[in-house]
């Protein structure tokens, strides 16, 4: 799986499962401050990533760097595969 495929899957999840009419979702949209409406955004996203990519996310990896935007999550996932 390449980075664009990963990105598209995550993007599709965020748009369909957590719609946010106030912002446009692109590679650098600030997810923590703009896209997620509450703390459950992270909880749900982690559950999706673990299921979709068959990975295990550890506590130390759940941080503002990895979850900053679509690009950073995709790079993080690619490195885990």
């Amino acid at each position, binding site marked *: 799986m390449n980075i664009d495929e990963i990105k598209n899957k995550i993007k599709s999840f965020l748009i369909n499962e*957590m*719609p946010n009419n106030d912002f446009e979702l692109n590679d650098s949209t600030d997810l923590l401050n703009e896209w997620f409406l*509450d703390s459950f955004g992270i909880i749900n996203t982690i*559950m999706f990533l673990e299921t979709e990519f068959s990975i295990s996310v550890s506590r130390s990896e759940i941080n503002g760097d990895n979850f900053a935007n679509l690009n950073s999550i995709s790079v993080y996932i690619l490195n885990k595969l």
Partner: protein
Amino acid sequence: MLYEKLILSKIKNNSDLPCLWLENDYLSYENINNICLNLSNELLSLNLSKGDRVILLIKNSPEYIITFLSLLKLGVIAVPIDHNSSQDRINYLIENTNAKIILYKIDNKIEYDISIPKYEIKLDFLEKQIFLDNKKLAQKNSEINIEITEEDTAVIMFSSGSSGRPKGVILKHRNLFQSASNVSSVMNFSDKHKELVINPMCHSGGWQRIPATLIVNGSIHIYDGLLSTIGILEDIKKYEITGFFSTPPILRALLNIKKDTVCENVKSIKILEIGSASFSEVEIENLQKIFKNANIFIHYGLTESSRAFILDTNKYPNKLKTVGKESPTVKSQIVDENFNFLPKNNSGQIIIKGNQTTENYWNLYEEEKFRDGWLLTGDYGVIDDDGFLTYLGRKDDMINFGGFHFFPDEVEKELGPIEGVKKYTISGVKDLKGVMGQVPAAFVVPEDPDNWTQKNFIINAKKSLPSHMIPRHVIQVPDLPLTSSGKVDRKNTVLLYYKQ
């Protein structure tokens, strides 16, 4: 007054009693007292005096607790605000409370335009030093002697303001102490209690556990970082946490994780408190299977009257559909629309009085909220012969289906979890045919949207609901929006997904 009961009284017997943890280091009650003394003295030098308002724009952190306690010591009124608040809300609170300063600690990138002096609070945990705008505060040994009584206001907590402008709930030192005392006594907190704080302390639900822990000489660990179920489980196990408070969505997320994994991590939990939204009997029983060593408590309350009712699920396993009995000092009644007290087993509006209950709002007189010393909650319920309250729902949420009156929470409790459905909520929507006024609608997030049909939902609903409660519309949605306190935001759900 409250400060003495929470902190000062503890120091006399044991100067090294742990109070606040950061990983494996802790600040003792004596350390906290010293830091609060330094901060209080510095705040005095900013010309703050008793009765002044100070806005706390501080994320969940040791700084939040230390700042709150320091203001209690001075008799200055804390006005907490969510650290992710909009500029508009901050402006409103500054103006409404005529606040003198803002004390802040935030880590997001939002730049606020603040019209009054602002000071950043920072704690060096290991050095036990507090900083105000990067200035290290000098060690002070002289006690502050400001006379504070239990009738002085401690905090103004603003409601999330789902309808109209936020309302400031005035809570006195007496109110906070009573709530804390109720929590710790009914839930049997011991001096070994180690609390994990995961909910925002700027709301009543999250904050009231702090004084409840301090009263019994317990200690506090604050969840740090982005909230995740993995993180919660890890903290519980690593720091041997004995209790926490949560709203239902987080617990539902935990119920979705492999049971063995959760069981393994939560062995140390002895007290689990659930509040703020409805939780079905089946869900409580599922939690009991996971939190095997814990007693689970359900509460009913609002910022105006925190934890007014508490259910001890171990003690009353046959009352899981209720939210328990009156807390100490609480008196309650059910009234009809003309304020007549109703006999047991009749539904009507819940009214409350008690030591933990507010008597008025800040800068606002609401005639329909207070009468003859009672707080009119705007919530509907029924009290049974044994004194247990069944919560029916918000007056605002009541569905009027062609003359049948009922509440979304009632429907959700009866339905419970549904196979193939990740989550759902019930709300009244306008009857487009104009016949019934309103009809019940279900907004459903399926587990597998491709292999799910509305029909399945209706079949389930027909099995457990009387006909008037069966949803007339079943609307598949990608997610349910939440309020800042973690409840499903029904109004927004309808606005987002129901095309009228």
